[in-house]
């Protein structure tokens, strides 16, 4: 069971641990005042990575080798200088790529010490084999003709927000793209194919609605014990595959809403997943001002509404895609919101404890 939660926020990194005075105690864990867009704790060597977005000064990456006591800046993934213009803006211009956000950070497989994967806006996938000291653009995905079809969702430019390394075979990679579907590589990134058949985009003209390459999976997660099962919280629905992305099935009649950003799947039970629903893409609010987490234990046939301990009225919290996390035991859940609330459950979501209602906007939570 994880005993520490890392929380990346608009104004710094925080750490939450079991407390003496209260169940959970919060403390600053560095970068106070800086925008921390993502955090990773590498389970292989316990190092920590914090992605910063300094705005004026660009994005940066820092690593800690001593459980967060000290941090050092490491290399930031960057597109090669001189890279041709190939990123389309909403205004119709085509521009040369510049990393504007680190949107995914994951450790490589147990057999790949030092390997870290990073996804960015615009949609670059980068690989480091030396714990972030240097980075290499994964050219096969960037140069794939299908990549040119990607477009921005909430952000102006498309990006990679989910990177899944198959626990049985670390050469098998899955990435989620907003907007650009789900892409799979069987060979460590040397070749790629879009695997989003069955996803439906309600925001597209009808003749393009089922086009795999324009889907907007907000977040994609993988069951560790059964890696063929992936869940996606998509822009207009919840989708699931049991064959590694070959075909996706839409979960229909989702209550109270099929809209949201975050999803977590149980590490050993592929039919058990959690979501933080919001009201439609036009509003992006909790349904009826109630913060709710939903859980399915039967693969999406039914959902339980979990709200014990969560605010039931006048709550306008939105949970972003990286701001829900389940610990490796499958027991502890945490989620944070754009209005600075943070809740933890130690019983798979049946009840929730408020850790804070006054944090900066929460971008990501990660159990150690």
């Amino acid at each position, binding site marked *: 069971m994880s005993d520490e939660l890392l929380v990346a926020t608009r104004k710094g990194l925080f750490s939450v641990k079991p407390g003496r005075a209260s169940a959970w105690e919060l403390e600053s864990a560095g970068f106070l005042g800086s925008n921390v867009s993502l955090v990773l704790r590498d389970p292989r060597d316990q190092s920590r990575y914090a992605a910063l977005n300094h705005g*004026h*000064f660009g994005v940066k990456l820092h690593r800690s080798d001593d459980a967060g006591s000290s941090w050092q800046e490491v290399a930031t993934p960057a*597109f090669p200088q001189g890279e041709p213009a190939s990123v389309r803006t909403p205004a119709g211009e085509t521009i040369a790529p510049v990393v504007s956000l680190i949107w995914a950070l994951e450790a490589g497989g147990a057999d790949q010490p030092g390997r870290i994967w990073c996804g960015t806006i615009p949609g670059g996938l980068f690989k480091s084999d030396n714990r972030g000291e240097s980075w290499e653009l994964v050219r096969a995905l960037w140069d794939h003709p299908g990549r040119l079809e990607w477009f921005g969702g909430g952000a102006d430019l498309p990006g990679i927000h989910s990177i899944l390394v198959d626990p049985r075979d670390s050469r098998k990679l899955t990435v989620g793209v907003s907007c650009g579907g789900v892409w799979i590589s069987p060979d460590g990134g040397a070749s790629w194919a879009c695997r989003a058949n069955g996803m439906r985009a309600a925001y597209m003209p009808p003749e393009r609605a089922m086009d795999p390459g324009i889907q907007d999976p907000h977040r994609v997660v993988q069951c560790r014990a059964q890696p063929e099962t992936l869940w996606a919280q998509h822009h207009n629905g919840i989708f699931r595959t049991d064959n590694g992305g070959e075909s996706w099935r839409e979960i229909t009649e989702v209550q109270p809403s099929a809209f949201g950003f975050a999803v977590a799947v149980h590490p050993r039970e592929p039919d058990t997943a959690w979501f933080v629903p919001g009201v439609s893409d036009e509003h992006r609010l909790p349904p009826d001002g109630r913060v709710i987490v939903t859980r399915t234990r039967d693969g999406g046939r039914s959902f339980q509404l979990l709200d014990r301990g969560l605010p039931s009225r006048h709550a306008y919290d939105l949970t972003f895609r990286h701001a829900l996390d389940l610990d490796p035991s499958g027991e502890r859940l945490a989620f944070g919101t754009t209005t600075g609330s943070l809740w933890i459950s130690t019983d798979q979501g049946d009840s929730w404890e408020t850790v804070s209602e006054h944090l900066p906007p929460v971008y990501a939570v990660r159990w150690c």
Partner: protein
Amino acid sequence: MKAAVHLSFSSALQRHVPCPPLAVEAATVREALEGAFAREPRLRGYLLDDQGALRKHMAVFVNGAAIRDRRGLADPVEAGSEIAVIQALSGG
């Protein structure tokens, strides 16, 4: 023709990377910045983007005038030029 110029940096930048004022020999803004990067390599990524252009929300002034070539940084400098690297005001 290279000449001695002075460079100074926004105080907000000092929080992230050391960059005291310095004198370098340069004929263009890019040469002047390269002189600063030679002393503090990390500074490059804070001022320039992946493609070597001045970051969108940064500004460089030479003797009080904003540079014109934000991408190539080819604006000329001369002996005694004061180059100020500052941030545009934005954010919350």
